[in-house]
C-alpha cells in the first residue's frame, strides 16, 4: 500500500532506480505502469475481444455509431471532471440536460436558431451558477453536502423541464423555422469527422489548456487538494467553486444540445442517467473522488471505456438489465480501487 501512496503526487516522477535493489524497482515500475494505464489496457482488451467475437463491431456503420454516441456524455463528463478535481460533485447534470434540451428546442421557432443556441448555453451557465450560489450560501464544504444539494437541484431542473414542456416531446420535423445549425451539429460532417466530434476536440483542447496552463486551473486543484490550506494561502476558493459549477453547467448544456440535435427530438426526460454515467466515466478514468488529482484526458479514456462497453454489450445481445448491473459493478470497483490507492 505504501508503494501506491508514494505515487499519488501531482506530477510526481516515476520512481528512480537507486542502489542495489534496482531489479525490484523495475518490477514496481511495471506495476505502476499497469495501474496508470489500466483503462487503456481494458479498452484494448474490450475492443480486441469484441472484434473477434462479433465482427459487426468493426463495421463502418457501428464505428460511426460509436463516434456519435460518445459526444454528449463526453461533454458532460469533461465538465464533471473539474467539479470532481475541485473536491465536489454535481448530480444536477441530469436536470440541466433535460431543461436545456426542452427550452432550446422550443425557442428555435420563436427566436430563431442562433438565439436559441445562445439561450440554451446561457441556461446551462445559469443552472451551474445557481448550484454554486446554493453551495456557497449554505456553507457546504464537503462533497456529501454538495451531493445532496445538487441532487435536489436536479429534481428542480427536471420538474421545470416537465412544467415548461407540459411533459410533451418536441421534434424537429414539427418546426417550420430553419434549424440547419442544429442539424449540422447533429449530423453534419467536417472532412472525415462528424461536427460533434470536432466540437468535442475543440472543447477538450481548451479545457486541457485551462486545466494545465492557467492559474485558475491550479486553484481548482488546490481547492480539491486541501480547501483549508488553499484558503489560508490566499486562494479564492469561493471563485473556484463558482468556476467549476459554471463550467460543468456550460459543458452540460453543450452536451444536451449535441444530444437532441443528433436525435432531432427533445423529451423532458432526455438526460436520464447522465449523472451516474458521467461520474462513472470520470472515476473509471482515474480522477479521484477525493479531489485534487485528475485530468480531462483521463476522463476521455473513461468515457471511451464506458461507451465502448455499452456498445459491445449491445452487440453481443446482453440484456439492458444486466448492462446496468455491469456498469454499477464497474463504478464500485473503480471507487474501491481509488480508495485503496489513498489508504
Amino acid at each position, binding site marked *: 500500500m505504501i508503494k501506491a501512496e508514494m505515487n499519488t*503526487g501531482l506530477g510526481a516522477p516515476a520512481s528512480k532506480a537507486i542502489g*542495489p535493489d534496482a531489479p525490484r524497482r523495475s518490477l514496481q515500475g511495471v506495476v505502476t505502469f499497469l495501474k496508470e494505464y489500466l483503462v487503456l489496457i481494458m479498452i484494448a482488451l474490450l475492443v480486441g475481444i469484441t472484434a473477434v467475437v462479433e465482427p459487426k463491431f468493426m463495421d463502418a456503420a457501428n464505428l460511426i455509431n460509436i463516434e456519435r454516441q460518445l459526444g454528449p456524455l463526453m461533454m458532460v463528463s469533461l465538465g464533471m471532471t473539474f467539479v470532481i478535481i475541485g473536491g465536489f460533485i454535481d448530480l444536477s447534470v441530469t436536470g440541466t440536460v433535460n431543461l436545456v434540451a426542452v427550452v432550446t428546442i422550443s425557442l428555435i421557432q420563436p427566436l430563431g436558431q442562433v438565439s436559441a443556441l445562445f439561450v440554451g448555453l446561457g441556461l446551462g451557465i445559469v443552472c451551474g451558477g445557481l448550484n454554486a450560489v446554493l453551495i456557497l450560501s449554505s456553507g457546504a464544504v464537503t462533497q456529501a453536502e454538495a451531493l445532496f444539494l445538487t441532487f435536489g437541484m436536479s429534481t428542480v431542473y427536471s420538474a421545470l423541464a416537465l412544467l415548461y414542456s407540459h411533459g410533451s416531446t418536441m421534434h424537429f420535423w414539427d418546426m417550420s423555422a430553419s434549424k440547419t445549425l442544429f442539424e449540422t451539429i447533429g449530423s453534419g460532417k467536417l472532412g472525415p469527422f462528424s461536427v460533434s466530434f470536432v466540437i468535442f476536440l475543440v472543447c477538450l483542447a481548451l479545457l486541457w489548456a485551462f486545466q494545465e496552463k492557467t492559474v485558475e486551473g491550479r486553484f481548482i486543484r488546490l481547492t480539491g487538494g486541501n480547501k483549508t490550506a488553499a484558503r489560508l494561502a490566499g486562494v479564492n476558493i469561493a471563485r473556484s467553486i463558482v468556476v467549476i459549477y459554471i463550467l460543468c453547467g456550460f459543458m452540460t448544456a453543450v452536451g444536451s444540445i449535441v444530444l437532441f440535435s443528433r436525435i432531432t427530438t427533445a423529451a423532458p426526460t432526455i438526460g436520464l442517467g447522465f449523472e451516474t454515467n458521467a461520474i462513472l466515466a470520470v472515476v473509471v478514468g482515474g480522477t479521484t473522488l477525493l479531489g485534487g488529482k485528475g485530468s480531462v484526458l483521463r476522463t476521455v479514456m473513461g468515457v471511451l471505456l464506458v461507451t465502448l462497453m455499452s456498445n459491445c454489450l449491445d452487440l453481443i445481445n446482453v440484456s439492458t438489465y444486466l448492462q446496468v448491473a455491469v456498469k454499477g459493478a464497474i463504478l464500485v470497483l473503480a471507487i474501491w480501487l481509488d480508495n485503496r490507492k489513498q489508504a
Partner: protein
Amino acid sequence: MDAVGSDVILSIKDVSKSFPGVRALDNVSVDVRRGTVHGLVGENGAGKSTLMKILSGVYERDAGTVTFDGQSVEHTTPHQSMQSGLAIIYQELNLVNKMSVGENIFLGRFREMKGMRGTHAKAREILDSIGCDIPTTKLVSELSVSQKQMVEIAKALSFKSKLIIMDEPSSSLTGEELIELAKIIQQLKGQGISIIYISHKLAEVFDFCDVISVMRDGHIIDTKPTGDFTRNELIAMMVGRTIENEYPPRPQCVGAPLLEVKHLNTRKLHDISFTLHYGEILGLVGLVGAGRTEIVRALFGADKVRGHEVWIDGKKVKIRKPRDAKEAGLGFIPEDRKLQGLVLPFSVECNITMAAFRKFSWFGLIRKSIEKGIAARQVAALNVKTPSTRVPVRNLSGGNQQKCIVGRWLELSPRVLIMDEPTRGIDVGAKYEIYMLMKQIAERGGAIILISSELPEVLSMSNRVLTIFEGRIMGELLPETASADEIMSSALGMAQVTA
C-alpha cells in the same frame, strides 16, 4: 555489538529499506538485551519509525535479517508480530473508544477468554500486575491519556509480550502521569520484559533508559550505555554537528509600531488590542484553548470577527478573509502543518508557490519557468532537504515540510509573519534552523507573532510576551526581565501584570 547470546531478545542486522528517492534505512544493526530499556533517539526522518514499522510488519525490509527471541523473522504481519511477543504502542493510541477497558485488552479474543466474564477477570489480573486500578468495565472514551496508555500496556502484556516498543509515549502526559509511566517501565523491566523507548524528550531518555542508540539519516550512529553519554554529545550525534545553544540569541532590533490591532472581539475573544513593532518578535503565551490561535486566526481573516480595527503603518486596513490579509502584507503559518498548511499529495514546488501565484501568472496563464525559479530559490534559501521539487511534499520530514510553508510566505516578503506552533513535532536541528530564520526576518525589519506551547521557546525567542487567559490579554511582559514563573502565573490568570 556482536554478542549474540541468549540475553539478546532482538537482533537487527544490516537492515536496509528504500522508498522512491529516499534511503530510509541503510545497513542498520542493533541488539536489544532482555530486561533492558533501550532508548532510540534521532531527528524526525532519521529512520526510527521506518525501523519500528519493519519490526512490526507494516513495511517489508529490502535487505538484512531480524532475529527475535532466537527466531528469524520473515514476512511478518502486525498481528503475527504481536502474537510472537513483540508489541508496539503508538503515539496515537489504537483503542476503540466506545468499548470497555477489558474488551479493548482482549479485542477479538473473547472466545479464547471464555466469554466476557473471563475477559474482565483476566483483564483485572493484568491491570493489577502493573498496579493499575482502572475498572475493567469503564469505557475507554472516559479515560485520561495516561490511563489509555496503561490499557495499551496491559494489552501488550496480554499477548505475553517479551518486547514492548513505545513510540513517543510521553508526548501528551502531565508530570505526574510521567512518574506513573516511569514506575510501570521499572516493573516491566523487573519482569524481564525489554522496552524500546522512542522519544524526543532527552530528559526522559536519560532517566529511563539503560542503553541509548542514536539514529541519523537512516544509520545507527552509536549505541552506548546511558552513563557514557552526555546531553550535548547526544544532541550533537543526532544532528551531526555540535549545537552550542538550543536557541540563537534573540534579535534586538525593535523599531517603530508596524501593526496595531484594536478591540478585536469574537465569540471567544474579548477586546484584544495590541501593537507590534518593526523587527519585533511578539510571543503569545497561554494554555491550549486560552485563545492564542483564535487571536491570530481572527487577525488573518480566517475566522469571523465582530468588529475590530487593524492599522498597518498608520493606515487602516480591512481584513475579512485570508486573501485580504495576504494583500495587507501578513503571512500565516498555521498550527497544523498537515491539515491546514500543506496539500500533502502535491509537489514541493506547488506547495511553496501556492501563495505567490501573482508572481508567475501572466494574464491568468502559469509561467512554468518562473514558478520553478520560485521553488528552487526557496528550497535553496531555506536548505529544504528534498530529492527534487517535484516529489510530493508528503515524502519530506516534518522539519522540511515546515520549511516549505515558511518559504511560501517568505517569497512574498511579508511585513508580519504569524507563526503558530512553528516547531511542533520537528527535530532539534530543524528547530534551530527555524529559529535562525525568525531571527533573520526580524533583523530585516519584519515582525513576527509567535505562538508556542513550549514555554522556553517563546521566552528565548520573543522580545515581548502577551499572556492570554480565557480570551483576554492578561499581561504584557519582557522575557528578558520577567521570570518564567511570573509569566506562567500571568498566563494562568493568577495575576494581572504589566511591563
